[in-house]
């Protein structure tokens, strides 16, 4: 097996037994980047010299027998909306093309302390708005399984980097599915933690009540390791919650999985996706997990709810990009025009579309009809989940309604693109944890993933079920 194909656990073992060095591991990863990234375009920038320097330091510490964190010396890819001090962070936008981060995201500080190696920053949909990574101002990323297809989005670069073995694991961010959907389309694991588990300090904000940073990895066990390393309350993010995480000691045969009847109605679900998700349900049944039908009566409103709340928060969060304190600034005589022209030239069409939509739903006369209404529907959706989690430990669904679509296929119709999020937005609205796990390939050889959702702070159930599933697949 190539060094680049190792999981975090496997790489850690080889580093500890000195079977390979951190420098060799890093060099192998950069070799893979050189070989594949010309075609895949997962990365916007790589940090080879710094990474090799850091790897040497890790090797020196291993040599003197120092006990290190499980992530020490592990090459990770970081999504381009997570700030790394003194490095370019652009959110794949022209408006931040020259911006250099002035501080570290809290998750970056934690990973630095653990001794992780940063391979580079990965491509994404501009400001995390999209489900295909096609709206990046710096070109699309290609699905490593089929170069004519999208990797999903918005964390398409991170998912593609993991799938193409151009890193051992990656960080992404998820507002409406942006970790899980690309993970599903690229055949890797992606976790969106419970809202408040991982600090958003240093994450370029998209929708503050929905965003979470999370791991994209080759295995469920790796997702658990990376999640454990980045979680924690943070005085710099007052929405973080102090909570401990312990591995769930229960046997999966004592667990119950709910199948929402609203998600498996006839029509609208790609037959290959349906087939493979149903197979996954059977595998859980064979493991002794109890399967029962549940209902999420307000699920049909989730996408509409999301596409009111998210653009509203986006319109507020992106108002800081105005050509004054950082980033692109278009010259103009009047101050108003500095703002208006900078934002016209700096933001791509999808970003501008969502800002305009958000401005509309928040504007006088429409605020109650749209935004307040959507917030109430959000309360209904959360209530649905609270009720269901009284009966079951986890809920299963497809992650994405379709496998990877062709590049350019959905770009002319925003609504068609938005419908890709139909199974993922609910977890962000309810603030619950959700994981996507690969479960096979379509007839065209494209990866398919199923999604498990659990009650707030119950990532333990997701990891236990996920690992049990993986064991069977092996």
């Amino acid at each position, binding site marked *: 097996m190539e060094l680049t194909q190792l999981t975090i656990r496997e790489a850690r073992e080889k580093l500890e037994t000195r079977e390979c060095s951190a420098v060799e591991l890093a060099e192998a990863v950069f070799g893979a980047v050189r070989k594949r990234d010309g075609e895949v375009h997962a990365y916007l920038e790589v940090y080879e010299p710094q990474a090799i320097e850091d790897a040497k330091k890790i090797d020196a510490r291993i040599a003197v027998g120092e006990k290190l964190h499980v992530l020490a010396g592990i090459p990770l890819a970081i999504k381009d909306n997570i700030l790394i001090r003194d490095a370019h962070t652009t959110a794949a936008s022209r408006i931040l093309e020259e*911006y*250099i981060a*002035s*501080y570290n995201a809290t998750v970056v500080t934690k990973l630095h302390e653990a001794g992780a190696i940063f391979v580079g920053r990965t491509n994404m949909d501009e400001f995390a708005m999209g489900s295909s990574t096609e709206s990046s101002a710096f070109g699309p990323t290609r699905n490593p399984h089929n170069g004519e297809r999208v990797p999903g989005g918005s964390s398409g670069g991170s998912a593609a980097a993991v799938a193409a073995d151009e890193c051992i694991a990656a960080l992404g961010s998820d507002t409406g599915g942006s970790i899980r959907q690309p993970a599903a389309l690229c055949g890797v694991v992606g976790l969106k933690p419970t*809202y*408040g588990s991982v600090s958003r300090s240093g994450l370029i904000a998209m929708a503050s*009540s929905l965003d979470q940073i999370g791991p994209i990895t080759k295995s469920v066990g790796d997702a658990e390791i990376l999640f454990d390393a980045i979680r924690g309350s943070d*005085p710099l993010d*007052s*929405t*973080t*919650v102090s909570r401990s995480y312990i591995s769930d000691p229960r046997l999966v045969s004592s667990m119950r999985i709910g199948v929402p009847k609203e998600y498996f109605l006839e029509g609208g679900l790609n037959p290959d996706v349906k087939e493979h998700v149903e197979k996954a349900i059977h595998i859980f049944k064979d493991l002794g997990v109890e399967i029962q039908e549940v209902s999420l009566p307000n699920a*049909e*409103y989730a*996408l*509409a*709810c999301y*596409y*009111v709340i998210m653009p509203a928060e986006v319109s507020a969060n992106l*108002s800081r990009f105005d*050509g*004054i*304190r*950082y*980033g*692109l600034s278009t010259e*103009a*005589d*009047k*101050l*108003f*025009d*500095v*703002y*208006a022209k900078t*934002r*016209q030239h700096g933001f791509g*069409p999808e970003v*501008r*579309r969502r*800002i*305009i*939509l958000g*401005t*509309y739903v928040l*504007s006088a006369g429409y605020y109650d009809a*749209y935004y307040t*209404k*959507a*917030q*109430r*529907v*959000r*309360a*209904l959706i*959360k*209530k649905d989940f609270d009720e269901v989690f009284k009966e079951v430990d986890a809920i299963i669904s497809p992650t994405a309604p379709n496998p990877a679509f062709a590049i350019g296929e959905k770009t002319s119709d*925003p*609504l068609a693109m938005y419908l890709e999020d139909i199974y993922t937005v609910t977890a962000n609205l309810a*603030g619950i944890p959700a994981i996507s796990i690969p479960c096979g390939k379509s007839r065209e050889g494209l990866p398919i993933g199923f999604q498990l959702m659990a009650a707030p702070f119950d990532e333990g159930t997701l990891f236990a079920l996920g690992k049990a599933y993986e064991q069977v697949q092996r």
Partner: protein
Amino acid sequence: MISKKDIEHLATLARIELTDDEKEKFRHDLERILEYVEKLTLADTDRVGALARITEGSNILRHDADEVRLASEPHELVEAAPGEEKGHIKVRSIWN
């Protein structure tokens, strides 16, 4: 449902300049999206309040301290600005 004037008003509020073609494209897109989200009116929300916050918690204050360590030096932040003069961020006059 959405007129060109509506889009122009929104563009002003959002401080984004749009070309005429863009105004028409966004007008059309907005109309389609609003048509889709119209289904929210069918949800029975009479008995729930707005969900404004996901996590519990009260205001979090930092400790009083003689010295507060900043994540970045002031000069670094000023240097990041597009316009700078004598250690201050330079902008167009607000009176224009």
